[in-house]
Structure formats: C-alpha cells, structure tokens
C-alpha cells in the first residue's frame, strides 16, 4: 500500500512541489548560519524542523502510520536533492529520523514506538548515537561500557567517544555490554539512554579544525530502565548492524550537495588564473566526473531496490562520497593557496578559513560511520564473496 501510494505520485510533480515549498519557506537567515551548534542557531534550527513537521515533510520516508508519507527511495532522493539545492539548514535530528526511528519500527515494542517516535518526528527530542568507544572503533564489538541489571534497571558504566551532537542531544541510542562472559558479539545490548540522567558527563572534543562537533560521553552509574532495551537483551549487535546499513545507505545526501563545492572550485580556478591550464582543467573535469558518478550510482541503487532496502552495496555509497569529498577539498586547498598568492580576489581569502575547516572535516568522513578500510572489507567479503579473515 505504501509503495503504491508513493508510486502513484508523479516524481516530477513531487519535485516541483518540494522546490516551490522550499523556496518559499527556507529561512534565509539560517542559510550558512554558523556555528551550527551555537544555542541561538540550534533554537532556530529546531523551529525550522517544526515547520517541516507542520507541513508533513519531517520524515517522508517513514510509514504513514507513524506520521510519515511512506515514500520510497526515489521520492526521498528528490526531496534530498531539492533540500540541498535550496541550501536548507542541515537536519538537526538525523540520528533520530534516519537511525533510531527506523530501528524502533523494526525492533522496538509498541510501547517504545508510541513513546519515542512522535517526539523524533516533531524534533522535540534530539538523538545521538553511542556506539564508538576509545577501545572500540573499527572493532566495534570490542566495546566495554557495561550495563549491570539491578531489578528493573541497568546500571551503566563506561565511556563513549566521537559522539556527534552529544552536547545538545536529549537521548542516546547506545550499545552496551550486558554479558561480559558471552562471546564478544553476543553480550551486547542496544539501549536508549536519557542524556539528562545523573552520572552522564559530556566533554566536547576540540578537533584539528578547531570545531567541537564531537564529544566524549562518560557514564558513571547511570540508571536506565530495562524497558529501554531495543530488541532482545544480548541481541544488540544485530540491531546495530541493521542500523548501520541505514546510516551508510542511500537517501542522506545527494549529488546536489556537491554542486556548490564544484562551483567554488570553478571560481577559484578562474580567480587564480589556472582555468586555462590543462592540468587544472583535467582536475576540475575529474571532480565533475566523480560527482556524476555519485549521482548515477545513487540513481542506479534506487532503481534496483525493489522494496526500499539496501544491502552491503550501501558500503559503496559511503566509501565513494567520502573519498570524492576529500578529493574535492584537496583541490580546493591548492587553488585557495594559489588564489591567495595571486591576491586577485580578496573576497576569496575570507572563504579560505572556512574551506580549510571543512577540508579537515572531509578527512574525518573517511573514518566515521565505519572507516573506509572497514567498508572495503565489507565489499570484499559480502559483495565479492572473498573469504573472511579470522578476526
């Protein structure tokens, strides 16, 4: 029924509807507002999320019964393309909308769905993801944060790290170890933790670009109801794996996100006097090619997914865009340095610090959400069927 509803709506009409609505409603003062996580900007971003909700655009991919539009991947991608074309503010509750909500729909109890889904949709509760730990990065299953069952509660101790949005999140979707004696993939449980709980301390991490978008989260005797378990106790690894496919999958970024970056490279190449140099032309052409490849890879994946679900091929998506993005920023660093040296366009110099900060961030994308080396392992083993290595 869901798919039929979505298919019935013509894609071009949908694009036109979204384009028009966004151009009339995206708050101009939020476009390019920095820093994105200052209390004042956060407040305006919450208000914008509320506007999206009021107009039915908060989570178009969610089933109708949970307040979405039940739209499939093709409609979602069009929404994402138009959202990025309109330079609309980054979605505030990505983890809630893309990860926690769909995971609760798949693994949660009816009580959990009625408790948490609506507040995610209305952006009343913002979520962060608590998977990584200092000793559990690529080897996620090595995580140590312990959850002891005491009566109807867990008592949780440990540390999470690289948590995006931890400073303002209301809830954390976390993996904890409930059985220290089980094989390492078996003793893990997925729990929902109230970030206001006593015993939680959040320490922002100052990153190489000076920003503080990630944090460490310390948990010291934090009490969480056992009722906040997602899926079975001890089955958290499977819950997390289905969630990670969502995190790496299609629908979160379109090629349109890269058009302003290509435009900036173009501008820099012209300003630095390199636009007639054939090496620079080939380099610019290479980035155009990569962005087109990303676009059509995404389009192909959507065309081939009959039920809106994606398999290990999702690893290509994350691997491709993160490498592409890092390469674009790399060229930009060269052209910025060149444009600075020639000094022809002072306005460009003002953009340089922001480009540099984004450049370092683009390097992080090769590591987060499963490092690109892990993505290559997944492709080799699950797509190409190469033999598993003992790990």
């Amino acid at each position: 029924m869901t798919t039929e509803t979505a298919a019935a709506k013509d894609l071009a009409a949908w694009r036109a509807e979204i384009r028009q609505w966004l151009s009339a409603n995206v708050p101009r003062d939020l476009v390019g507002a920095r820093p994105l996580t200052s209390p004042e900007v956060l407040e305006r971003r919450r208000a914008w999320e509320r506007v999206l909700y009021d107009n039915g655009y908060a989570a178009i991919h969610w089933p109708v019964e949970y307040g979405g539009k039940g739209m499939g991947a093709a409609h979602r991608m069009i929404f994402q393309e138009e959202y990025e074309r309109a330079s609309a503010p980054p979605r505030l509750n990505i983890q809630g909308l893309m990860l926690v909500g769909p995971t609760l729909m798949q693994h949660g109890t009816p009580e959990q769905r009625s408790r948490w889904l609506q507040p995610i949709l209305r952006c009343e509760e913002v979520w962060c993801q608590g998977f990584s730990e200092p000793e559990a990065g690529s080897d996620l299953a090595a995580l140590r944060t312990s959850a002891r069952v005491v009566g109807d509660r867990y008592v949780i101790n440990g540390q999470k790290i690289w948590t995006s949005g931890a400073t303002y999140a209301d809830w954390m979707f976390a993996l904890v170890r409930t059985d220290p004696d089980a094989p390492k993939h078996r003793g893990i449980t997925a729990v929902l933790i109230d970030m206001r709980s006593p015993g939680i301390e959040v320490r922002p991490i100052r990153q190489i670009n000076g920003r503080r978008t990630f944090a460490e989260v310390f948990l010291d005797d934090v009490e969480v109801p056992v009722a906040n378990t997602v899926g079975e106790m001890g089955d958290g690894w499977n819950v997390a794996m289905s969630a990670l496919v969502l995190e790496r999958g299609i629908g979160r970024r379109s090629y349109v996100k890269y058009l302003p970056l290509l435009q900036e490279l173009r501008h820099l190449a012209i300003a630095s006097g390199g636009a007639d140099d054939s090496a620079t032309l080939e380099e610019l052409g290479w980035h155009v090619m990569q962005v087109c490849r990303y676009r059509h890879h995404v389009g192909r994946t959507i065309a081939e997914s009959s039920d809106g679900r994606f398999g290990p091929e999702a690893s290509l998506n994350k691997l491709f865009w993160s490498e592409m993005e890092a390469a674009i920023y790399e060229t930009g660093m060269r052209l910025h340095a060149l444009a600075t040296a020639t000094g022809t366009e002072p306005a460009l110099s003002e953009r340089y610090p922001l480009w540099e900060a984004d450049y370092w961030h683009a390097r992080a994308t090769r590591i987060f959400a499963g490092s690109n080396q892990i993505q290559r392992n997944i492709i080799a083993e699950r797509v190409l069927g190469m033999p598993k290595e003992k790990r």
Partner: protein
Amino acid sequence: MTLSYGSDATSTELAAGLSDVLSAKCDLDHVRRVWSEGEFDRSLWDEVSSLSFWGALIPEADGGLGVRSEDVVRSLEEFGYSGASLPLTETVAVVVPTIHRFADDEMRDRLLPGLLSGASVSTAAVMPGGTVALFADVADVALVAAEDGLYVLERDQFTVEPVHSPDPTSRLGRIKPRPDAFTPHARLGEGALDEARLRAVWATAAVLNGVSRRMLDLTVEHTKQREQFGRAIGTFQAVKHLAADAWVAVESSRPCSWYAAYAHQEGLPDAAVAASVAMASASDAARLVGDSALQLHGGIGFTWEHPLHFWLKRGKLLEHSYGSRQFHLRTLGVAIRDEQAGSEALFADV
C-alpha cells in the same frame, strides 16, 4: 519517470539474448583461437547477425528492433565481458542508427539491408583528428570524420594501413580515403558527426565497463583459489582492498554509460557532458581494475596461457579509443569553466 539504469525488462532481455549466443559460441577456447589465428571472427559475426541485433536502435518498420539507446547498454557490457572480437559497438550503436537518421533515401536503401543482415561489416572513425578505426581492414562501410562533417565511405573508396594496437584482434587500421572519396553525395546530413561521436563514446564506455567486469571476476576467482601462507590470498586485507576499490570503480562507472545513452536519446542538455563522464569513468575504472587484476594474479597473469591478457589488452585499446581519459576530462573541465556548476548543461534535471 524513474530512471531504470538498465534494470528494465527490455534491457535485460536484449542483453540475455546476446549473452546466450556469446557464452555458447565464444568460450575461452574460442577467444584463444581468435587471438592465435589472427583472422576476423566471421563465424561469430554471423551468429550475432542471426539475432537481428544490428538494427536494435532503428524502428521496427525499417527492419530494426526499435529499442531506445539506453536499452542496448547492458548488451554492450555483455559484449565487452565476453571477449568477442567484433565491430559490434560500431555497427549497432553508431553506423546503423547514424546512416538511418542522416543518409538520404538512396543511400539508406542501398546500405542498410546489408548492414542489418550482417552481409556488410562496418566501422567508424569519428573522433577529432584521427582516421584510425577498429576492424578497418574488414569494413565494407566506414563512417569517416572530415573537417566539414561526416562521410560514408564504401570499400572501394578507401584503403587501410594496419597500425599497432595492444589488441590485434580488434584490427585497428588507418583509413586512407581515395582522393575523390569525399563527394557531396557521401556526406551525411547536418549534425551527423556530433551524433556519431556521442554514440561511439557512450557505447564504447559500456563495452569497456564489461571488459572491466570480466577482469574483476577473473581476479576475484583467482584470489579465492590461489593459496599462499596456507590460505586463499583473498583472505588478506591487502588483497581485499584492491579488489574492493576495483569493484567500486567499475560499479560507479556502469550507470554513467547508461545515463549517457539515456541523455542522448532524450536530447538532454547534459548529453555531451554525460558521454564524456561515461568514457572518462570507464577508462578510470579499466585502468584501476586492469592494474589490480594483473597485480593480484601474480606471475600467472603474465603468461600467454592465462586468459587475463585478452581483456587487459582489449581494455588498453578501448581506454584510448574514442577519446582518451585526458581528452574527456579536459572536455569536462572546459564545461565547468564555461558554465555554472549547477547548470543544466552539466547536471540536467530528470
């Protein structure tokens, strides 16, 4: 409309029909024989001709199959995958549809029946500044680019000088028109050259992606069989990562040739950009896949006996036919220099 990227029934059925014939008649022994004997593979040519494949892109009323450009992309991949040595790309994707659209009635009536039946073999030399063509010495009909447009030359109007290429079975040769060959009558209508070029580029990109897929499959198979240190070498991450990157390269290139054919068929403003993207990415992928394939095969890949080199050399030929990677990247660089990044000439709305 949702773009199918070749997952639709027309594309897959056409590709399956061609693939059935190619896998039955063009196994490894057959490929080896063609490489060692040095003769044009007339028997396989006749087999494919019996499928009525050559007219795939012209209307049924004119003796074709009437499918759209993008519907042959999967078939072209299967052809590249098979290792067959035929002017298949040129015939189905370039010569037949270009003559059908741009030739006058007399020329169409004279040439098309032979081209459709397979009685005539054809080729195309359509890129700027070059007159070399694949299968030049066996071509009865050749499309040849000149400064003022595209000409159709018949066998007695040109001679052929063989030139070196990594893949002798593709019979690369320089087409040397006789002095009186470029007559007004032999010249195709306005726009024929651009059209033929676009077609040759996206179609060759699709074939090259098929070549890359075959190299990758051979390589992955090898890493599962070959043991060192007491285990299959495919167990090692150093090997896995090369294979994974090769897979990413070819899988991210394949949808680009489909889209380029689609953009061309639809007359989208980004058709020229899409063709260059298709060819540059297919070349990128072929180079990466070929490098990793040879590396991961180790010593055995360097033997004449192992079949890998047939596809390596086919890839190396196609990488530099119909515009090199650099040529197409510069084309794209010029496109973004001269247009805004968000313009429809680079990224058309679909």
